[in-house]
């Protein structure tokens, strides 16, 4: 019985150590930060493409001032927001970042829609190249966002579930992280309005 009891006790202790999730929490916290960096990185990549794109469109459709300026302004707004890992701790800052990027997405959508009206622009090699790059970047953004959403959902679960919530709260002082909301997904997925 003694042997049995000791074995059982030690095994329970090992299981208990796993159960508190100290390492898991640390690891997944780091994972969410990495996923977030990837999101920011891809948004930055998109912002870098825009000056060239605007210049190219201007060459063919200079009188579409409103749309062009809309893109430039939305870009300035999006890049003007300082993003740090601290942004993740502040839901308001996160919301601001998200809205600025969504604004840029819809401004860009309008710009691409306008290009449809200019056959010469559409045929321009430079424009087609920029458009491929923009499409590629939008796709990467979608992937990076999805990964971030998955990571944060996993992280938030650990922060809330018992008993890992105790470790998170009292030992590591970790809070839930903000995630991209469904309402935001809708605005991103919504096709841009085209006015004639």
């Amino acid at each position, binding site marked *: 019985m003694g042997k049995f009891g000791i074995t059982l006790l030690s095994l329970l202790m090992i299981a208990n150590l796993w159960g508190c999730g100290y390492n898991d929490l640390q690891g997944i916290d780091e994972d969410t930060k990495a996923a977030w960096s990837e999101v920011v990185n891809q948004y930055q990549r998109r912002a870098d493409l825009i000056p060239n794109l605007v210049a190219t469109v201007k060459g063919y459709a200079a009188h579409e001032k409103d749309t062009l300026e809309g893109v430039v302004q939305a870009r300035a707004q999006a890049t003007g927001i300082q993003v740090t890992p601290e942004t993740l701790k502040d839901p308001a800052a996160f919301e601001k970042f998200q809205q600025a990027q969504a604004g840029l997405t819809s401004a860009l959508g309008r710009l691409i829609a306008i290009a449809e009206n200019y056959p010469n622009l559409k045929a321009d090699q430079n424009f087609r190249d920029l458009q*491929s790059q923009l499409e*590629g970047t939008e796709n*990467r953004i*979608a992937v990076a966002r999805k990964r971030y959403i998955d990571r944060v959902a996993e992280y938030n679960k650990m922060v809330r579930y018992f008993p890992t919530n105790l470790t998170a709260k009292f030992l590591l002082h970790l809070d839930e992280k903000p995630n991209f909301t469904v309402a935001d997904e809708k605005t991103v997925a919504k096709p841009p309005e085209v006015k004639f």
Partner: protein
Amino acid sequence: MSRVWRKLARLIVVLGVMLVAASALALDVPPLTGRIVDLAHVLPADVAALLTSDLETHEAKTSNQVAVLILPSLDGEPLESFSHRVATTWKLGRKGTDNGVLLLIALRERKMRIEVGYGLEGTLTDLRSAHIIRNEIVPRFRAGDLPGGIAAGVHAILGTIEGSYRAEEVPSAHTRTGQEPSTFQYVLVGIFVGVMAGLVLSHGLQYTRALLGSALAFLVAQFASLVLGVVAAGITALLLWLILQTNRGGRGRRGSWGPDFMSGPGGFGGSYSGDIGFSGGGGDFGGGGASGDW
């Protein structure tokens, strides 16, 4: 007797219909049966064989894994998300260097995509992918030459990513097993702990202790996933039961169990060695690449 058979037949039909209905809801990722998965049957056998051998030599030389998937239809699934799903499910490319590429073609939608792994985004850029689609593939597809377009596209991809990685750096075990080592380790550790505990505890109340062992195996392996936890518990219970059977000298009743247990682990390991076919090396994809239509 015949009524029983009819009932059984009806049950099988119902199950089959349910299975088909379930699979129709979302387009499943097709199994990775080779480097060229031609579900639309557009490639003549000789072209497919030639391309396969080109892709093979390329992988042997550079460790880049390139695969082609030709689908009759996307069934309404968005091209980009499906292509990403296929590429990440197949895990093309080596783990760590993520040097895989997928060329996906959907015939009915007349759409295609080159999905590029993280590690090749620097050489096979979105722009280069778009150019391959625009200049190599689309003109041939428009002329009705599907095999020629696919071959030209594959060769352009291989030419672009040639020299970005070298095969010598490849730990060969990694390119073969598509299994995540950490997941697998949990299961192995779980079974080991479970069996050991079960053996230590198995004086006296044998079957109850065996159950305790499998419970422990479940506890450890469920860190990987719930299903694997159950699997580990099952294997542990089976192993413990077999060991207890042999220890009791219970071979008289079912003599074949003893030798079976001895060959058991060998057979288990054997099911993982998918050396004959082609399998992904654990590469990851971040959405790089380009799409196009014809």
